[in-house]
């Protein structure tokens, strides 16, 4: 149920990219909008809002989650990593592979793709082609850069050994 105006906005302490941020938000606000609107971290994208496209993927304690469907009130002290916090300077092997393969077209889905890929490779550093497809199947790329996403994930895997 949507909170009424008479209720004060609760405050949350969120651990994002290694820093604790204090934010005010109604408790059902998805983490996605807290990141984008309150913390000005706009790398995490909005695509569908119903956990179907993966554009909003972030890491929660290292697991890839859909931030559009994760109410801020359920995050607690868990560590959140966003695309902005993946590396200081774009030097994560997955980011480097994305650059090497020149993956993006419009680029809008790519932060979500990269976040899904990094969480996946952390758990499965030496994936087969089929495993890569399974892992990335949940992320839509409307520009259909799938061939290159696939190539970049396997390139990154090789970089990470």
């Amino acid at each position: 149920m949507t909170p009424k105006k008479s209720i004060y906005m609760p405050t949350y302490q969120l651990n994002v990219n290694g820093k604790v941020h204090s934010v005010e938000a109604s408790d059902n606000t998805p983490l996605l909008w807290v990141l984008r609107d309150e913390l000005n971290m706009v790398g995490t994208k909005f695509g569908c809002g119903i956990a179907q496209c993966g554009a909003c993927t972030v890491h929660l304690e290292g697991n890839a989650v859909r931030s559009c469907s994760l109410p801020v009130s359920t995050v607690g002290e868990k560590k959140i990593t966003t695309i902005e916090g993946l590396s200081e300077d774009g030097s994560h092997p997955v980011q480097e592979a994305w650059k090497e393969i020149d993956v993006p077209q419009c680029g809008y889905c790519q932060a979500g793709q990269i976040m899904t890929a990094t969480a996946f490779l952390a758990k499965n550093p030496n994936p087969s082609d089929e495993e890569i497809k399974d892992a990335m199947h949940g992320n839509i790329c409307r520009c259909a850069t799938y061939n290159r996403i696939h190539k970049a994930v396997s390139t990154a895997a090789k970089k990470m050994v």
Partner: protein
Amino acid sequence: MSSTSNNIKFNRRAFLRTSSLASGGLLIGFNLFTACRPEAKPPVNLADLNYSDFNAFIKIAKNGAVTIFSPNPEIGQGVKTSMPMIIAEELDLPWNMVYVEQGHLDTKNYTRQVAGGSQSIRFGWDALRQTGATAKQMLINAAADKWGVDASEIKASEGIITNAAGETLGYGDVVEEAAKLEVPENVALKDPKDYKIIGTDQVNVDIDKIITGQPLFGLDYKVDGMVYASVLRPPAFGQELVSFDASAAKEVLGVIDVIEIGEKAKSLLSKEEINWTAQLSGTGKVVVIAKNTWAALEGKKALKAEWKEASPLESTDFHDKKLNELLDGKEFATLRKDGDVEKAFSQADKVLERTYESPFLPHNCMEPMNFFANITDDEIHLAGPIQTPEDAAITVAELLGRDVTDIKVEMTRMGGGFGRRLYGDFVYEVAEIADKIRKPVKMISSREDDMTTGVYRPAIKYRIKAAIKDGQLTGYQLKEAAINGNMYGLIPNFFPAGAVENYQVDVANYTSNITTGAWRAPYTNFLAYAEQSFFDELAEEMDADKIQLRLDLLEKVKGTTDERIQYSPERLQGVIKMAVDKSGWGSAPEGTYQGFVAYYCHNTHVAEVADVQIQNGLPVVKKVTCVVDCGIVVNRTGAINQVEGGVVDGIGHSMYGNYAFNKGVPEASNYDKYRLIRMKEAPVVETYFIENELSPTGLGEPTLPPAGGAVANALKAATGKRVYKQPFMLDKEIWKVTEKPVLG
């Protein structure tokens, strides 16, 4: 056939101007489309940089660094990288010394600044080369003055100017002097053999920002004090707002206000002949203004509104019936007529007639529609993703009764376009909102808003009829029944026009209240599948080899003097032969079935072969071999990306894309009900380019239309059955297994 020679005559004085910058260095303003006024002058302060007279600029700083302000909006087709590559080539610079920035639109004058129709590179090719070459010549002339030698003794390459004695100067060393020189005429362009940048692989210039999540897109655009707006539009096409109750919405935490918009659009609609890109609707709309996006979206959900039926609410069955009536009827406009098709049919040994159907399709840009506006008495500041910034500015001026010179449009990167962002409906909405609330505001559509209040690819049916006599194709008739408009331009003159003596194209349409418009590769995105499926079947009927039939028909077009025929039979034959060779056509392994297509559209010649297997009763497209003749390939990696994307997009929509209406209401509103192609369904795409030195043509669209046809022909080979309707997976006759959308 066009070549790399200059087939456009530039009025160089009008097209190029230089000046010295207040900060030091040289600024070159140029106009890609030569529409600027002769008295135009570029600014001397970068802050004054505008696009009123010139739509692109090059800045050469004293340290030799070059910044190119890229004129065309970037929707993912790569022009922000490839267009500057062309300038840098002729300017003769190492690519790593070039910085690229997106230019903005000033609205005092207008030039072509549109992304659409794969035209950016085609129109820009000559102008961009001229600009680079002219700038280089000015730098050489300045160095010649400095050294007191003749310019012909000087060479410039890789950003260094060298004289006969071996002395050198950097470009930056002579920019101040160069800025004061006359703009030279008749500057020689490079021989394509000497290209160092064109034809190489240059990574997307925004790559670092994309992979680190920096703000780039309209949705990321933000200013201090900005509020968020969510718009409640009629749930059904044909409805209009009667009244609304905002009390629950106003209770939502973070909601600031609820307003109504629409009167301005309505009054403009009633008095003006509006531009084709101006998708204005005449209904009232309810807008929730909030402190953040979530509150705006939640507030919208809490609104209660009453709607009335202003025009009949249409369903898919109804459209189906209407289109059939049109095809069966007599109300056609004839777009091309050669010989006498009726006679050919009556004298034929055999007549083949087939009908092909396609549904409406939403664009589903990954970034939902959104736009920013801030309106004061002095200025209208618009910012966001739009493919037609000039049209948007003109319409906003008319809408608000303001002077167009008050308007500044800032263009952001676009999270996809596919034709959707040619239409400025969301810009007019935010303009009305900002005009009312007088605060910086961003309108954001949810996915549901975006998908259900779109500008759709219209549902279309084609009926194709062929006459066969004595083993020859003697007649060919294409009938189109479409919603809200018909094929345009040179499409009626595409192959096999010119190859068949008796040939006719007839069109008819039904006007619907469902908004429709351009969708990546308009008309051909479906027509290619229809025609190429028909061709396959025609070859079977004629007992002819599928490839040879196409080659033979093309042979007849050679040497044509018909100017409407813009496809080149030689180039189409070229891609066909290479595709046969590269795909292993005819020698697919057991269990793999191939489908062939050759098609020309958007000035580019393409042949594709799809390899399909049937697994668990369902088709899997394993591989597509794609051969493209787009002239000179400017940026190879970017070009391959476009080709692959077009092919996979084409397959996805022809296999899965379906958009039905029930009493005016779209049946799907998000990705749980609307299926887009995903990783596991995407085939490997193998891309080959025909190497030649012809002027480059665009790649954003032409590989998409053939893909559906190649798959349809492969499905026939695999199952023995033909699909006559998109999306292919809906055909219950063929696919006994009912497939559920694969969810994320």
